[in-house]
């Protein structure tokens, strides 16, 4: 055996060496998980937390101005029974608004791409809807839906989350490959066949990109609407908890609620990214693993 034979790749994927090769790549992927890429942000985060804690202790900052991370963590554990149900209320609003925005955004985008005139006539109003400060109109919406606060909050969050889906999906539906469009025309495809087999798959990466933005915006929309609504009672969301904690100068509790909200946002983003990678893994540049 040559001394450097272990360095040469297997001659073909079907050779017995392939399994060893595959195992090796799995190990290297595992190693990569603990590489600098992952360790660096964790180190930065831990360092910042330590600095924060040390700073708070050293300068004896009162907790109502800035609580240390240990106190926040302690409060989070203590207040979990009250905060978690509130977070679930906000989650319900977020999910309802997100689903509504996804379905309506997709349908509106499909409608837009049926004719240039529909798009030209209606797109400016979608932009107006997007730029409208939801904080300003939320009280009105809540009054309109006076008997149903949940629906009012969902509508507010829906307004915030809708535009990225319309905008991205419209772009995607319009960016189907020109040769493929010709091919469909040549083989006598009707409008629905072209939509279903060409335009929608072409729009998929754009649509999924829109979902990732809207997932976070749904949460922000829900929190902002709750802030404005300031609803009391049993069905109060996490924003209400943030607001009340701030009024009562329970700043560690406010931080705990904030961390939960942010954590929820991160979870939503990660889930939508996983969904996107899974749906696009075979074909789209964004989801392909490359060696270089």
């Amino acid at each position, binding site marked *: 055996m040559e001394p450097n034979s272990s360095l040469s790749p297997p001659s073909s994927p079907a050779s017995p060496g392939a399994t060893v090769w595959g195992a090796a790549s799995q190990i290297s992927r595992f190693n990569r998980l603990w590489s600098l890429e992952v360790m660096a942000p964790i180190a930065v985060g831990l360092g910042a937390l330590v600095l924060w804690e040390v700073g708070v202790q050293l300068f004896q900052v009162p907790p109502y101005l800035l609580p240390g991370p240990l106190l926040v963590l302690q409060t989070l554990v203590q207040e979990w029974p009250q905060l978690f149900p509130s977070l679930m209320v906000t989650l319900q609003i977020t999910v309802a608004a997100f689903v509504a925005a996804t379905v309506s955004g997709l349908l509106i985008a499909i409608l837009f791409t049926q004719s240039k005139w529909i798009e030209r006539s209606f797109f400016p109003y979608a932009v107006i809807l997007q730029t409208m400060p939801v904080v300003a109109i939320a009280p009105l919406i809540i009054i309109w839906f006076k008997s149903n606060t949940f629906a009012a909050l969902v509508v507010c969050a829906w307004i915030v989350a809708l535009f990225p889906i319309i905008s991205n999906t419209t772009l995607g539906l319009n960016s189907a490959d020109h*040769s493929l469009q*010709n091919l469909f025309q040549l*083989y006598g495809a009707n409008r629905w*066949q072209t939509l279903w087999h060409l335009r929608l798959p072409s729009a998929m990466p754009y649509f999924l990109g829109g979902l990732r933005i809207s997932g976070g915006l749904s949460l922000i929309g829900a929190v902002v609407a709750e802030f404005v609504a300031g609803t009391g009672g049993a069905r109060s969301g996490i924003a209400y908890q943030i607001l009340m904690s701030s009024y009562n100068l329970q700043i560690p509790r406010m931080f705990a609620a904030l961390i939960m909200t942010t954590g929820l946002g991160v979870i939503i983003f990660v889930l939508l990214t996983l969904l996107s990678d899974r749906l696009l893994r075979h074909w*789209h540049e964004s989801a392909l693993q490359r060696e270089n």
Partner: protein
Amino acid sequence: MPPILTLHQVSKVYGNGTVALQDIDLTVSPGEFVSLVGPSGCGKSTVLRLVAGLGQPSSGQIAWGLSPGERNLAFVFQDAALMPWATVVDNVHLPLKLKGKSLRSCRADIQEALNLVSLGGAERSYPRQLSGGMRMRASIARALVTRPNVLLMDEPFGALDEMTRARLNSDVLHLWEQKHWTVLFVTHNIYEAVYLSNRVVVMAAHPGRIVADLAIDAPYPRSEEFRTSAQFNHYCREILRYLSSPERTVTVP
């Protein structure tokens, strides 16, 4: 034999006033392999698109010697134009799917088309996993799956390396000899045009027009030796002359 396709005084003027084609006269007999060569902008692809019905001529007529029922066109695009989200089988299935045939009912046709282009075994692959040459083979298989009698090819091998191009040239030629298609082949590569065709139609730009129509009198099957023969070189020189001085008079074969 009556012509299968006749273009009579066909012109195409775009909305901005660009004359893409001016007074194109072209007659194609059944079973002929006709190449259109010319510089970019000479309208050779436009001819193909008009013949395919992807657009209407501004003036002139395009007449078929086949009834719409007998006519079965297939188009091969320069960039393979495969759906990246679909496997090779699903891509080849597309023309039949658009006619309402399920994958199950046309498995045999798809397999046959894939075998014709030597792509058996790559059925479950996605376009990204294929080389440029294999993608083009898949694209040709998609064209063949409807059993066409007229094949329109728009610079199909333009983006491929020279070796792959030579392989696909001889493969297409073998298939053409078996299947007796009528082929309209657009290319800017004169060597490819001479090697493949019965006739080479030379075009010039501004406005797009035909400057020469040369018969390539060499028997089929054409071997690789033909590519280096004196006869081959003679035709290539001839075409180059027309390309470099397009104002010369038209020669009719």
